[in-house]
């Protein structure tokens, strides 16, 4: 028969194990600058990415990481011969490095888009644009976030 002491130590051990397991499961792996570089490589391949032409407009200090307004613009005449084909936005500290990828053409008239994103921590976000001649250009911005998104509980 189980003694009272055995029963108590058994249940405490079990509860501790469960608590540990839940702590482990609620913390997803964070993206790192390395995974961001890998995600950028998936878009650009081996083509070198030059800095410039791409501008990210984002508040330098945001209170709520759940909805951060971002505007990305790329300098381009947007003609049939010289236009922006795609724009991708990446982050380095969310659980996943990708944020958004858009495809546009000369009809856009203006290579600019605005949206709202989630950021899990103060970090650098990077935008990469592909031009019609195949070259890639990038721009980045630093954001400080006081309330993180993505990993908070509902409690």
């Amino acid at each position, binding site marked *: 028969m189980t003694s009272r002491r055995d029963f108590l130590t058994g249940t405490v051990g079990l509860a501790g194990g469960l608590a540990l397991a839940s702590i482990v499961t609620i913390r997803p792996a964070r993206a790192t600058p390395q995974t961001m570089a890998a995600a950028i490589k998936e878009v650009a391949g081996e083509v070198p990415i030059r800095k410039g032409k791409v501008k990210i407009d984002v508040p330098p200090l945001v209170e709520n990481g759940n909805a951060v307004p971002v505007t990305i613009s790329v300098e381009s005449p947007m003609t049939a011969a010289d236009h922006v084909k795609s724009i991708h936005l990446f982050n380095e500290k969310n659980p996943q490095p990708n944020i958004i990828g858009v495809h546009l053409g000369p009809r856009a*008239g203006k290579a600019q888009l605005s949206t709202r994103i989630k950021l899990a921590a103060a970090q650098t976000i990077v935008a990469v644009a592909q031009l019609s001649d195949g070259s890639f250009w990038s721009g980045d911005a630093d954001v400080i976030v006081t309330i993180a998104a993505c990993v908070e509980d509902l409690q």
Partner: protein
Amino acid sequence: MTARTLINVPAKARRGEVIEIKTLIAHPMETGYRVGLGGELIPRNIITTFVCNYNGEEIFRADFARAIAANPYLTFFTTATASGTIAFQWTGDNGFSASEEAPITVE
């Protein structure tokens, strides 16, 4: 499944004018990383693709990842070429699909 959407397209434009299109759709954009009251992970439920067609021709496409905020808001530009309709289509997890149209008159 229907979702509330908000579209802002200028009703009239001059031919060749670059116009701004603003879109907003009601959607939770659940990341799949959040934990519910019972300690279980809430499954991912996001919009993955947005497509904009101008008189049947695709002019803009966006792939959303989990880092897009709830109720995805997106603005972009296009050149007004002809009168007609601009159609918007969102698709996502769990068979989510929503579409909207806006008329435009080009002079």
